[in-house]
């Protein structure tokens, strides 16, 4: 693609993730358009952290995100549905056993 075509194209879409404070994960907060990564970071700062909402920002081109399918009934999540023994409540322990 030539540079001229590039200039005419809309800026790509980025997804924005913000770490609210130390000790927390980055959380998805929204998206924005920017010409490149650096601009995406500064725009994300101006747009999503105007009131000390973050100590760290990640931006990633939306097209680089791979996602599971949308159907809730998709067999993709089936392996986790029928394994109740993975949960602590599956096990009966007498009430008088301490600290368990």
């Amino acid at each position, binding site marked *: 693609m030539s*540079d001229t075509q*590039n*200039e*005419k*194209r*809309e*800026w790509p*879409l980025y997804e924005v993730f913000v770490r609210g404070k130390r000790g927390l994960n980055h959380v998805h907060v*929204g*998206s*924005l*358009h920017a*010409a*490149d990564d650096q*601009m995406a970071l500064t725009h994300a700062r*101006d*747009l999503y952290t*105007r*009131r000390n909402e973050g100590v760290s920002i990640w931006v990633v081109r939306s097209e680089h995100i791979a*996602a599971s*399918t*949308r*159907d*809730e*009934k*998709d067999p993709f999540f089936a392996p986790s549905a029928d394994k109740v023994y993975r949960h602590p409540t599956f096990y009966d322990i007498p009430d008088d056993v301490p600290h368990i």
Partner: protein
Amino acid sequence: MSTAHAAASPDSDAVQELESQFDATIARDQRIEPRDWMPEGYRKTLVRQIAQHAHSEIIGMQPEGEWITRAPSLRRKSILFAKVQDEAGHGLYLYSAAETLGIDRAELTQRLLEGRQKYSSIFNYPTPSFADVGVIGWFVDGAAICNQVPLCRSSYGPYARAMVRICKEESFHQRQGYELLLTMMRGTREQREMVQDAVDRWWWASLMMFGPPDDDSPNSAQSMAWKIKRHSNDELRQRFVDMTVPQAAKLGVTLPDPELRWNEERGHHDYGTPDYSELKRVISGDGPCNAERMERRRAAHEEGAWVREAASAHAAKQAARARAEAAA
């Protein structure tokens, strides 16, 4: 059992299955998320509503923005700057939410510029005095809060989440406006008259922000069934009136409605009927400032074109340089 993936089932069965899943999600009061199947009408309604909301925030920068260079003190100028910047931010949160519905942001801007999508009628009124800045914060942002707080529970996830962020910031907008008016009311007689004049000019237009009356609001019932909207226009208008009356008393201004009085039986204030023919006129393009607002928006878009192009060219050059260095 038929699912969307069962190739054998006829299309209508598959769609019915998807539709009943969608209805069940709404009935459980759960959120619809971007990649979920949704009826075309639901998507269209959301695109229209969210885009109109986003455009309102962006156009809404203009009436108050005019006062940034003329604010009476550095304190007021800083506050106004922050507020107008927030409006830009709100517009962008909302465009971001609209984009999850598979519509392009540039396309939405285009639709606004071509007059195919609308924005709130309220921003077509002029701001001839600095008291207008205060009254906009108090009335317009107050009305926006009434409208938007229930939208934080809207059935479409990205819209609801954008509204949560916006509502947190609107509270600052309303309070700075009211505080500005309190300050003016402690000033000279002339300043108090400016406040009353602004109240007189903005009151009815603010009531119209809630849209046409319920019996003349064709899209409302479907939006409520889909839980996009949670309350009717008239319910929200009543809430705004009830909220504002004691604030006006405390401020020492008169709301320009001779029919306004407390109704013990209803537990609400009775109030007069806004001139809805004016609302229709302003929405259809014939308000005091429609042409000016659109002209300003168009000019900003066109005059900013070289910046967008330069940034793209810079990004392309940097990327090419990085590729060359990697190859070397």
